[in-house]
């Protein structure tokens, strides 16, 4: 089957891959929104959405009630509602940019996933090969480059909406995203310095980062979160800000800006923003996992290959590339899901920062910290080598 796939012309494969991304990421984003509601409910001692039971599906014994309990049907109903609701374009907006903004939001959210390896399999020679759409050398740079395009959609939406709340939201968004992008990038540099030891061919590939965390030995197997906790911390904080998550959700802050940049949006266009935000979150989480938490390696100091080796007594099938691939993807997804849960956990714990606090943290705390961090690690790496 794989062979058949690889025998297809490149363009067809790309289209299939693209559709697959949409088909996977879109429901995933939607599922995140339901997860958000559920987590919110649990944090507030409620069961959360659990009522929707469509006539047919809800009657299926056992599964129906379980799906209902998890709010899956609510999710479907929400999706259906957003899809079929009247799509209002207010009269006072700039129509072209108003319509294009959600598309601009979706594009980077979906395309960054191409650079993210989400699993690995062992080839015949026992080498670990990544499962990803585009194993390009620029890797992380590509992600950053594309992800930072996301801010344009916010600015476009805010500006095109032609009313004050979206406008304020857009201004906040641009300032905030730019501020935190700096720290974020600077926090990653030590990681890349570390993996690009002198003599080896220089790379920015995320696969390489994971490979580096799957070596043997104490230092080799250590995840970067242990090696460079400060970098990990800065990256995480900046990630919150970049994805507009509480406590950094300045651009939306419904308390003071109604809905921020998407105040004037409704129905399907609005849902695109929503899914894009969750797309960013998913990619961001994945990035964090790859950079600092060992990617698809099940545990620190326990690389995937060793783990698969342990399973070998169960049968030869354990070494089959398909099994290993699925196993690794599951491990990776599990970590991402926990990371997303972590995002929500934070959201329902911390109150929103004030805008000036956001700026102060970004420029006066995080940036100096990340610069210091970079210098120290540079010196340390230079000394080590």
């Amino acid at each position: 089957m794989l062979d058949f796939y690889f025998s297809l012309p490149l363009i067809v494969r790309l289209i299939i891959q693209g559709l697959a991304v949409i088909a996977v990421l879109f429901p995933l984003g939607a599922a995140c929104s339901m997860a958000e509601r559920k987590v919110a409910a649990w944090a507030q001692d409620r069961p959360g959405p659990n009522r929707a039971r469509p006539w047919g599906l809800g009657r299926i014994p056992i599964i129906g009630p379980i799906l209902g309990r998890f709010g899956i049907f609510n999710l479907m109903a929400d999706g259906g509602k957003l899809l079929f609701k009247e799509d209002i374009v207010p009269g006072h907006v700039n129509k072209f940019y108003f319509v294009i903004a959600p598309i601009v939001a979706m594009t980077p959210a979906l395309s960054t996933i191409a650079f993210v390896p989400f699993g690995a399999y062992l080839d015949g020679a026992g080498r670990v090969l990544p499962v990803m759409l585009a194993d390009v050398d620029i890797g992380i740079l590509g992600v950053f480059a594309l992800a930072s395009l996301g801010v344009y959609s916010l600015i476009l939406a805010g500006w095109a909406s032609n009313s004050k709340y979206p406008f304020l939201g857009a201004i906040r968004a641009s300032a905030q995203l730019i501020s935190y992008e700096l720290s974020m990038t600077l926090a990653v540099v030590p990681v890349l310095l570390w993996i690009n030891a002198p003599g080896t061919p220089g790379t920015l590939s995320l696969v390489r980062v994971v490979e580096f965390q799957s070596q043997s030995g104490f230092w080799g197997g250590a995840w970067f979160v242990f090696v460079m906790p400060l970098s990990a911390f800065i990256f995480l904080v900046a990630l919150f800000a970049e994805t507009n998550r509480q406590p950094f959700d300045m651009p939306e802050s419904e308390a003071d800006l109604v809905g921020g940049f998407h105040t004037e949006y409704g129905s399907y266009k609005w849902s695109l923003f929503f899914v894009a935000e969750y797309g960013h979150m998913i990619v961001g989480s994945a990035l964090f996992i790859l950079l600092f938490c060992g990617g698809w390696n099940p545990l620190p100091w326990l690389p995937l290959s060793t783990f698969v080796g342990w399973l070998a007594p169960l049968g030869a099938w354990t070494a089959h590339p398909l099994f290993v691939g699925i196993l690794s993807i599951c491990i990776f997804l599990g970590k991402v899901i926990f990371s997303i849960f972590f995002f929500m956990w934070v959201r329902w714990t911390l109150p929103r920062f004030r805008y000036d606090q956001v700026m102060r943290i970004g420029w006066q705390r995080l940036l100096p910290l990340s610069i210091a961090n970079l210098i120290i690690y540079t010196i340390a790496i230079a000394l080590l080598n």
Partner: protein
Amino acid sequence: MSVIKVPRKPLTFAERTYIPQIVSGMMTTLKHIVAKPLTVNYPEERPEIPAGYRGVPTLVRDPNGREKCVSCQLCEFVCPPKAIRITPGEIPADSPAAHVEKAPKEFEINMLRCIYCGLCQEVCPEEAIWLQNVFSVSGYERGEFINNKQKLYELGGTLPDAHYKWDKKKAAAEEAALHGQH
């Protein structure tokens, strides 16, 4: 008035990083996430109504089936949103409760006006009006929210009586008649 300056303790370094606070906050959230929900799935599961709950005001009868309200109209007077409307009436002489003399001819409580304050229950000298455990009021028309006397007695039912003051009064009158007094 003098100005009192309350000294503010400077934040420690740990506090200034927010991190210990954030961690403890997240632990609190986690505790709630794993805790059992406090809510109930309402129409199927019903909350347990605690004693003394102030639900829909109702009229009650005493254990002998006598309607307790004597239409003194104190509740109508005290009701802050003027939800109560009483038409007083006289109890016919052939009724077993004739000695009570007065009873409401009509008694209406407009549940669109009622604010469930319980003042009617508090003021009632006959312990005839009680806010009981009905908490869910719904209807399609305004008229459906006006509980008339019959509905109020249906909702209210019978409550125990600590005094039986009217029964005692009747007994005293019968006793007196027996002994040749008036």
